[in-house]
């Protein structure tokens, strides 16, 4: 078995043994139950209201609810990604956990790769499953299905992978607490920049749009999330589409294949930085 796989298996076992997965699953069940209740009540109300003929209430309610759940899933995935990686290098080294592993003929790159793979396996599967559950709940409760189902899910998964990579890189330089705070601040900054971009778009303020564009390049998880939101109603048109795009948790923003290419390059860049930094780090 390759060294990276051994370390990844170790990281996965740690997540299971420390009951991380159990706790996350239980709380996710609570979230999904609440979400199902919210969907049922909302679609019921929408049916009884049916106010404006120009607005498709079912699309508006469904996309808003699923957009809300995507925001929550991104947040939960980010929490998982950060907590599984925030102390992977410096934190573990300070506690004396890392040195016995690094002395083995594993190679520091394999060690990093293994920790990343372990965290990503947990986060990616989690995000994909919860997103699929949210789509199903929305569809069953309101008979509304997103225009594109798989793309937004993949975008969310990739967004969480990016956050895990940023957190792992940060763990080389920062102590666990400082790294956790830093990554969550970046996460918040990314979301705030996305909202500013939407405001800029609505008011035609170029500076705000530039802020959003730059932040999308620097922190692509936000752009992936916005692209996912856009995918939910990509085929929708008219006033409904306009209202949906001004959603409450960062507006939808169309992104082409360039975003996926940039995200892949971004991950490679982070991997290269992490490799060099970890190789030079005294333990």
């Amino acid at each position: 078995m390759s060294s990276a796989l051994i370390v990844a298996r170790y990281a996965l076992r740690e997540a299971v043994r420390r009951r991380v997965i159990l706790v996350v699953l239980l709380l996710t069940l609570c979230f999904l139950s609440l979400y199902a209740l919210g969907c049922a009540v909302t679609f019921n109300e929408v049916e009884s209201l049916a106010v404006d003929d120009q607005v498709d209430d079912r699309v508006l309610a469904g996309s808003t609810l699923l957009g809300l759940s995507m925001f929550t899933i991104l947040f939960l995935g980010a929490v998982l990604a950060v907590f599984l990686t925030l102390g992977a290098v410096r934190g573990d080294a300070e506690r004396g956990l890392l040195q016995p592993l690094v002395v083995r003929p594993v190679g520091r790159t394999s060690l990093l790769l293994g920790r990343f793979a372990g965290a990503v396996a947990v986060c990616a599967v989690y995000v994909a499953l919860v997103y699929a559950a949210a789509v199903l709940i929305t569809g069953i409760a309101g008979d509304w299905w997103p225009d594109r189902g798989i793309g937004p899910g993949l975008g969310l998964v990739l967004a969480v992978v990016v956050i895990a990579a940023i957190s792992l890189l940060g763990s080389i330089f920062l102590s666990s607490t400082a790294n956790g705070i830093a990554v969550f601040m970046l996460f918040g900054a990314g979301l705030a920049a996305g909202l500013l971009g939407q405001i800029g778009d609505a008011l035609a303020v170029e500076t705000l749009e530039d802020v959003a564009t730059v932040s999308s390049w620097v922190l692509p998880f936000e752009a992936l999330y916005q692209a996912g939101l856009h995918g939910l109603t990509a085929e929708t048109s008219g006033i409904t589409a306009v209202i949906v795009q001004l959603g409450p948790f960062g507006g939808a923003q169309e992104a082409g294949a360039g975003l996926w290419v940039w995200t892949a390059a971004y991950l490679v860049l982070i991997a290269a930085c992490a490799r060099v930094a970890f190789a030079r780090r005294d333990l």
Partner: protein
Amino acid sequence: MPAALRCESLEKRYGSTVALGGVDLDVAQGELLGLLGPNGAGKSTLTKIACGLVRATSGRAEVEGTPAGSAEARAAIGYLAELFRFPDWLTADELLVLHQDLAASEGGRGERSELLGLVGLGDARDTKVAAMSKGMQQRLGIAQALVGSPRLLMLDEPTSALDPVGRRVVRDLLRELRGRGIAVALSSHLLSEVELVCDRVAILVGGRILAQGTPAELARPRGAEVETADGVRSFPDARREDVPRIVAELVAGGGQVYGVRLLASTLEDAYLEAVGAA
């Protein structure tokens, strides 16, 4: 055959702080070397450079002729840090399995049983690290360091948390390892322990080796005491070969001699002299 560990002009600086200031040191194959020195002397830094955990600023460190930190060097090394911790959710056996996997050891269950037995943890195979005392964890750490049959063992304060019985177990283990031809670099504050088991001792102070040699070489003669009818008389400059003459002179002078004791400085004296002179 190359030395198990060779350090040449090894330097490590952290900014303006000199952790190691040009260390030359050899550990021969199968030799048990004691590294002595006060806190901050550079013992842990030297050990970490040998293990590839810390990069030297200049100079060279080699393990069996290969650069310290290389995969070949790390494959030859077993290491127990002074400040270590193992995942508390693993059992003793699972921890050793993990290290067997990482070291590509094919020893399997037999190796694990032997190692746990060697450190007196044969009954703790399924005990979780979280349920172990610090002393048990330290013994487990030694077992972990021995996974994969390393040819050089770097032990940084391996007995600091052990009770006298545990220390005895480790001392016996070190002797057994020497018998198997495994070289050991033992960093310790316990001079009596080092004196008991080590073939050679290096005293490190302020990042420099101030003295090295066998415990006997480091100990210096400090005269003789002769017990006579008039009491104990001291001869501080006397050496072993002077004793017959001294006794003969005392007897010729009408004295009665009941016993003679040659005095020599201990390793502790040598250590304190080296530290005091620095």
